[in-house]
């Protein structure tokens, strides 16, 4: 464009050629614009780490793809009947304008028709998700065993009771309580296969401030599977029998009538120790309680 205009009527020595001026201007402008764009890009890259408390709506693509697909229109927020979802504001540490929820504030109610996914026009929320039970918004983790009331031996069970996938996503596992030595502990245990990450457990946890059970992004909550380690019991079940043949079973003296490997004995069962009486102090003086 510019270089077709001849610099007529102007002394060629005083003014640089239009072509050179154009190139110089263009270089300056391109450099400035490039820096601005690079700054925006780097900011976006740096801030794209999602804080652990921010949970994406059901059906959200993996975070990288999600940030390419979500246009930040808020239609999912509008169609969420429980005001669970909100759009990130600048300063929220979540990509500006993208939808998320905080389970401790308002958890996902797992609507069967999944209106947020239906509302999404771009595919950032994948319509392939039609069964909310298959959602993987995150994974609940009983993260604070020191303050969880069930771990202290009480029967709180609230996270287990509110779980929409009760007895699958959270079960109560009975354990011996070594502190009292005579009670059981019923430990809430999350199973990743069924947990949708809805966060109702985190919301319901009775602890006053932070919850003992928290929904975390799956990446944070789960380790990678050890690929070289074959789980014998799974292999055995898949093969329909032991892969190394039956083991030789040798009898255990005194426990011949029990199942192989069962070494539990009831009082009075098994080899008995003769009656034992603690030594009595000589004479009939008072017991001072002193022991060597």
């Amino acid at each position, binding site marked *: 464009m510019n270089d077709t205009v001849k610099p007529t009527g102007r002394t060629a020595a005083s003014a640089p050629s239009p072509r050179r001026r154009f190139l110089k*201007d*263009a270089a*300056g*402008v*391109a450099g*400035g*614009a*490039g820096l*601005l*764009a*690079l700054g*925006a*890009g780097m*900011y*976006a*890259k740096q*801030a*794209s780490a999602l804080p652990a408390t921010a949970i994406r709506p059901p059906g959200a693509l993996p975070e*990288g*793809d999600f*940030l*390419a*697909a*979500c*246009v*930040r*229109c*808020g*239609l999912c*927020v*509008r*169609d969420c009947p429980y005001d669970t979802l*909100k*759009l*990130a*504001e*600048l*300063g*929220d540490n979540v*990509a*500006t*304008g993208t939808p998320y929820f905080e389970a401790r504030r308002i958890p996902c109610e797992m609507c069967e028709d999944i209106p947020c996914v239906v*509302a*999404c*026009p*771009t*595919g950032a929320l994948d*319509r392939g998700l039609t069964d909310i039970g298959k959602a993987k918004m995150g994974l609940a983790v009983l993260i604070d065993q020191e303050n969880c009331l069930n771990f202290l031996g009480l029967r709180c069970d609230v996270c287990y009771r509110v779980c929409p996938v009760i007895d699958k996503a959270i079960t109560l596992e009975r354990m011996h309580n070594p502190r009292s030595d005579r009670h059981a502990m019923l430990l809430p245990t999350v199973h990743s296969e069924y947990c949708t990450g809805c966060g109702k457990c985190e919301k319901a946890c009775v602890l006053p401030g932070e919850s003992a059970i928290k929904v975390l992004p799956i990446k944070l909550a789960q380790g990678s599977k050890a690929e070289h380690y074959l789980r014998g019991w799974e292999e055995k079940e898949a093969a329909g029998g032991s892969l190394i043949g039956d083991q030789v079973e040798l009898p255990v003296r005194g426990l011949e009538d029990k199942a192989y490997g069962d070494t539990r004995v009831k009082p009075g069962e098994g080899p008995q120790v003769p009656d034992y009486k603690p030594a009595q102090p000589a004479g009939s003086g008072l017991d001072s309680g002193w022991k060597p």
Partner: protein
Amino acid sequence: MSAQTTTGGVPERKVPPTSVRGAAMRGVVARPGQEAIEAKGWLRAHKWLLLRRASQLGILALFLVGPWLGWWIVKGNLSSSLTLGVLPLTDPFLIAQQLAAGQWPYQEALLGGGIVLAFYLLFGGRLFCSWVCPVNLVTDAAAWLRRRLGLKGGKAPAGNTRYWLLGFVLVIAAATGSLAWEWVNPVSMFHRGLIFGFGLAWGIVGGIFFYDLLIAPRGWCGHLCPQGAFYALLGRASVVKVSADRRSACNDCMDCFAVCPEPQVIRPALKGVGQDHPLILDADCTTCGRCVDVCGKDVFRITTRFNRSES
């Protein structure tokens, strides 16, 4: 207020004292449009400005009556919306970034983007800037204050920076595989903030206001905004255009140049530089119609690109 104008007995072509040139001669702050107010009355001298504000605020109100009053006419925001539950509209600038980032959106977004694209292709790309975009309210306020305070000078980047920035926005989207510009885009951020809540986004909006007021006259909309650049590219062949069809009546008061957000587009049409017809065909023109308002001589009017007549 400026001094009273005395119109009686002066020659027709005399430069009015309140205009940009008249004020410069007298060494006072100019009041562009003052002459038009006296010649046409306040209402007619603000006709397009009022219509434009009604359009901007009306569109914003359509988005806001949902969350405020529960009347769900339009859901979403300018990035993507659903009107009355049936009409999807999506910003084609976002779809362009999405495609650059390697994401193929669902049909609604493509359909909505197509509708918006067709509208602006047909009627004029930068109609978005002056009739829809909420940032225009901010930058117009800054420009108005700049004129009222008589702030001169400043350093604005070259006008084609926005096109470079537009290119880089798409490159960065492709490089990061995400809508990187949308982390900071003040246009979508401002509109979304008004509807969904701001956080610290006020800082960015305030930054644009003070940048335009103190550093670069018309700096954001006129030089930097890649979204405006995108819509300018859309509007290269659009129909609605401003014409200086009564340019013979121009008295060189310079008021139109003072209020125009893209003053470089006026000269070819008004002064016949490089073209013989009076149409403003430059895609940078936002068709805001402010030049029509402030001209006391009714030089400009809004017409179509097919009307090259001159009167």
